[in-house]
């Protein structure tokens, strides 16, 4: 469980996050939605401890985040960044190997190799695993980084726009994978999603952010309403629902 208490953060004197309070349960898929610049990435960066908050605290499984050693944390939380550009000659397989570093410290064991293999297969990268990351398509690169994060095999997985650059088929597969990770492996996946329909149909909980504040938070059934979405994004929504899916229509 992650407890976030009156968290705030500013960059160069400009407040970005104001008084964030959240209690995030374990073993669920949680989508983080909201307009550009709302502070979603900043919140994830703080939870991954890649930057320091100005005020407030984050408690991870009843221990303060700041009390974890770097080594412990690397086996507890993994993080996929929003932008992944590297001018380095590294292959997809080598990248996924990196994901095991917190466990292997450079010496891959049989278990490490099994995890690596599983992640590569799950992300459909078997055929291109020896390609250099600067020579694959945007979607393939995105999946390569997801495979690295999966190989890291942490209890908490933070994904910043994992559907970036992905076609519909792969988007569905990634969302199914997050469900699989939560349901089968008990992982907690917190993911920023811009496509509201993926968020609405694949997650257990939804956190909506606007202007650096939590706008609403709850189970997806309870918070996906026309009124909520309209106020969050400032556009009209029409919700079409049957017993299987929920479609938030904002076209035309």
């Amino acid at each position: 469980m992650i407890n976030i208490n009156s968290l705030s953060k500013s960059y160069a004197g400009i407040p970005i996050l104001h008084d964030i309070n959240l209690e995030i349960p374990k073993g669920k898929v949680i989508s983080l939605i909201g307009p550009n610049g709302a502070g979603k990435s900043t919140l994830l960066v703080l939870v991954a401890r890649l930057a320091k908050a100005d005020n407030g605290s984050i408690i991870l499984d009843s221990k303060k985040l700041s009390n974890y050693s770097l080594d412990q944390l690397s086996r507890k939380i993994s993080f996929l960044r929003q932008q992944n550009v590297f001018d380095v000659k590294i292959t997809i397989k080598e990248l996924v190997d990196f994901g095991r570093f917190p466990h292997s410290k450079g010496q891959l064991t049989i278990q490490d190799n099994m995890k690596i293999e599983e992640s590569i297969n799950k992300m459909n990268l078997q055929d291109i695993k020896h390609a250099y990351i600067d020579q694959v398509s945007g979607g393939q690169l995105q999946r390569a980084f997801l495979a690295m994060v999966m190989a890291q095999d942490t209890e908490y997985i933070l994904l910043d726009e994992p559907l970036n650059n992905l076609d519909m088929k792969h988007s569905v597969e990634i969302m199914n994978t997050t469900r699989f990770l939560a349901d089968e492996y008990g992982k907690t996946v917190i993911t920023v999603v811009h496509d509201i329909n993926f968020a609405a149909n694949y997650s257990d909980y939804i956190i909506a952010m606007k202007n650096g504040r939590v706008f609403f938070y709850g189970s997806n059934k309870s918070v996906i309403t026309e009124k909520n979405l309209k106020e969050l994004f400032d556009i009209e929504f029409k919700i079409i629902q049957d017993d299987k899916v929920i479609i938030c229509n904002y076209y035309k």
Partner: protein
Amino acid sequence: MKKLLFILLTLLVVIVLTFLSYDIDFSNKFVVAGRVERLVALILVSISISYSTVVFQTISDNKILTPSLMGYEYLYVFSQVLLLLIFGGNSLFFRSKELSFIFASSIMIVYSLILYRVFFKRNKKNVYFILLIGLVLGIFFNTSTQFLQMIINPNEFGYIQGAMFSSLSRISIKTISIAVVTILIVIVYLSRFFKFLDILVLGREYSLGLGVDYDKIARNQLIGISVLIAISTALIGPITFIGVFISNISYRLTNTYLHHRTITVAFFITAMSMLAAQFVIEHILNYRHSLGVLINLAGGLYFILLILRTLRTKK
């Protein structure tokens, strides 16, 4: 990779043998010893340059900057002038090669750490801006040196003048032995961090995410690099400009992010070019030009090409 190493090794051996034996009278001990000394000095300098350039580029996250472009070598000379001014020409500090070397290394370490804090650590970094800063700092150290020279008395002036230009004439058995020991210690110490260094190519955030203390590793490496550059500058003067092209050729040949490979190949290329250039100077140009001139000429041309190419691909 094996094939590449084999070719490079063969080439280097051929060059070394030619360098040692071309047109030589083996009975003249003085000449033979001189050549061996120059050979060892150039090999040592090649180790320093290849290691420091490749790792410097990993830490500053770019493929254009090199220690020499950031003014390191001018700083070395500048530190020698400072030493002279503060302690005087007759002081133990100035006379003792070891002490003055430690002094210069310390100054360069401090400089590295400041560079890291101010420029490299930041997320959004503009390579051209840093390059400009390096250029300005280099000019600053250089002109300060020239300015301070005027205050120095003429006898001491000669010493500083010597340090400003690269030359193989000032090497001796003693300086070479000190260099060998220092380089060994530094490389053995630094290579313990190789597996972490390889992860640094993913940048600060992913490194931290994988449990690697990016700042600690980067600082350790920078300290080592500073000492390595100080050694090569102390041995034969400002010469590390050659790093600009050897690192990039090495990246192209090796196609990998693994430092033990890129550094090894970079070493072979450096050693071959230095020995070849020195050979040309000794036997074809009859010492009319110094090693520094040739290296700067080749390095400068390559650097311009590199900038042009990156400018074109950025568009």
